[in-house]
């Protein structure tokens, strides 16, 4: 599998705090990687570095062979990396349709077809003319995913797609993610709900205090002693 993303010795410090500490990993096209770790482990900071919202203190990020370490967020987005956010970020004064068509218009693509497909995929068909601010939180999460996938990105970064949702609400999002998995999309997913995540991804990367402490097949990673100690605990399977 050819590497789509190559992260090498990535480090980001905030004063004396090392939020991401010498992290390296590769990601092949069509691969889905789960990133887990306790709060403050540096997962979202890693996403912010990959998407240009934060600049690396050292290290490099190559995407499709191109060095994107110092690029601006909009440049990285136009290269084909889309993302969602831990706290939903949406355009409250815009309709559902405007929200998903704007990224395509920006890239001069086929607006109608792509928008219809994205809204169908996340179950928002029929809500095209609804203002975003009138949507439920679960619908906003779906809309954010639709906005991210509508341009057919090469790499999708999903930051806690189940975050903030009640257990019964996660089913809709799980369906969307399953579909993305079936379509063999390349994605990195940060998630605390291990059960749902492990059902989706074959590979897990665990972070703790900014460092990568494990990276490999999901089952093996979750059975590793250092991961059990730092994050999952001994009884996570029974949760």
């Amino acid at each position: 599998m050819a590497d789509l993303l190559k992260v090498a010795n990535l480090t980001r410090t905030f004063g004396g705090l090392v939020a991401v500490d010498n992290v390296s990993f590769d990601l092949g096209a069509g691969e889905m990687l789960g990133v887990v770790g306790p709060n403050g482990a540096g997962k979202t900071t890693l996403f912010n570095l990959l998407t240009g919202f934060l600049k690396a203190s050292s290290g490099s990020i190559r995407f499709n062979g191109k060095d994107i370490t110092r690029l601006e967020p909009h440049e990285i987005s136009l290269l084909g990396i889309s993302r969602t956010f831990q706290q939903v970020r949406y355009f409250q004064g815009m309709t559902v349709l405007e929200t998903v068509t704007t990224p395509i218009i920006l890239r001069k693509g086929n607006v109608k077809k792509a928008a219809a497909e994205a809204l169908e995929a996340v179950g928002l068909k029929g809500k095209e003319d609804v203002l975003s601010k009138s949507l439920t939180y679960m619908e906003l999460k779906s809309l954010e995913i639709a906005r991210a996938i509508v341009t057919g990105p090469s790499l999708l970064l999903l930051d806690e797609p189940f975050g903030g949702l009640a257990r019964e609400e996660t089913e809709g999002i799980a369906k969307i993610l399953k579909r993305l998995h079936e379509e063999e999309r390349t994605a990195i997913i940060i998630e605390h709900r291990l059960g749902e995540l492990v059902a989706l991804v074959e590979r897990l990367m665990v972070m703790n205090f900014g460092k990568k402490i494990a990276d490999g097949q999901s089952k093996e990673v979750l059975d590793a002693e250092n991961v059990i100690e730092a994050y999952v605990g001994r009884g996570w399977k029974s949760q």
Partner: protein
Amino acid sequence: MILPALAAGLGILPLGLNPYALIVLTFAYIYAAAAASWDLLAGYAGQLSFGQVAFFGIGGYTVALLAYHFPYWYWLSNPISATVIGILASVVFSVFIGASSVRMRGPYFAAVTFISVIVLQQIVIIFGDCGAQSVALPTRFDWAHKYCTGGQFGLMLPSYGAALFGDNRLTYWASLLYMIVSLASMMLVVRSRYGLYFKCIRDDEIAAQAIGINLTKYKLIAFAISAVFCSVAGSWYVLATGMVNTDMFGYGYNFLWIEMVVIGGMTTIIGTIPGALFVGIVSELLRANAAIALAVFAAIFVIVVRFLPEGILPLLRRKIGLR
């Protein structure tokens, strides 16, 4: 739907109004266009500028100074050329101010735009002291008048105003037509892809970047487009009135336009028509006592923000079913 209906109604008004009322309405139309340019920038792109009046002044003074100092270079000083030069000057100024301030947010951006107006007003005053408005038009190009702005008193331009259009009624119709064309053009802008990008930036800058929008570029474009429309409003003001003074760089206008937008309906562009008519007519009714007028406007502003935050136009649309 609403714009043609309004235009038809306002178009037949001169048949039954006295000349004074026509002048009041003519001013209201020019202010409506200027206020809409602020709505485009603040309402659609979310850039809270307190310096919009700078472009009104640049547009106005460009037309006035060219007409005053270069009357025999008509290819340069005619209303159309002068307005275009005013637009260019405004765009250059907007890019200059914008480039240094669009990376700032909220109060910092507002402060920079606010201060830029003070600078321009002072420049006009500093370079004003080489003749008064009573000085006759130079018979030929005269270097002594090169920097003459007329200072605080400004300049009178006998060839403009009623002399340009014929009479008050024609000035009224021309100004009404100008306002309609200006607002319709702004509607086209906000309904284009630029309008979508502006709204994304207004609602969430981080999400806007995440979908690929270049913040600096599109904020500057919004700033420049609104500068163009406000500059033309300033030029039209001078053409319609035949006078210019430092009030054109005054905060009075800026706050008046904000009031018009808020009362008429923010993020509507054409809401500035009812907003400007309301503010314009109430201003005239209270003209005898400026202090009371100020208090009344402040009270109206608070009441509208509290009880009618969407403004008059969205309310009308809902009540009458107009679109």
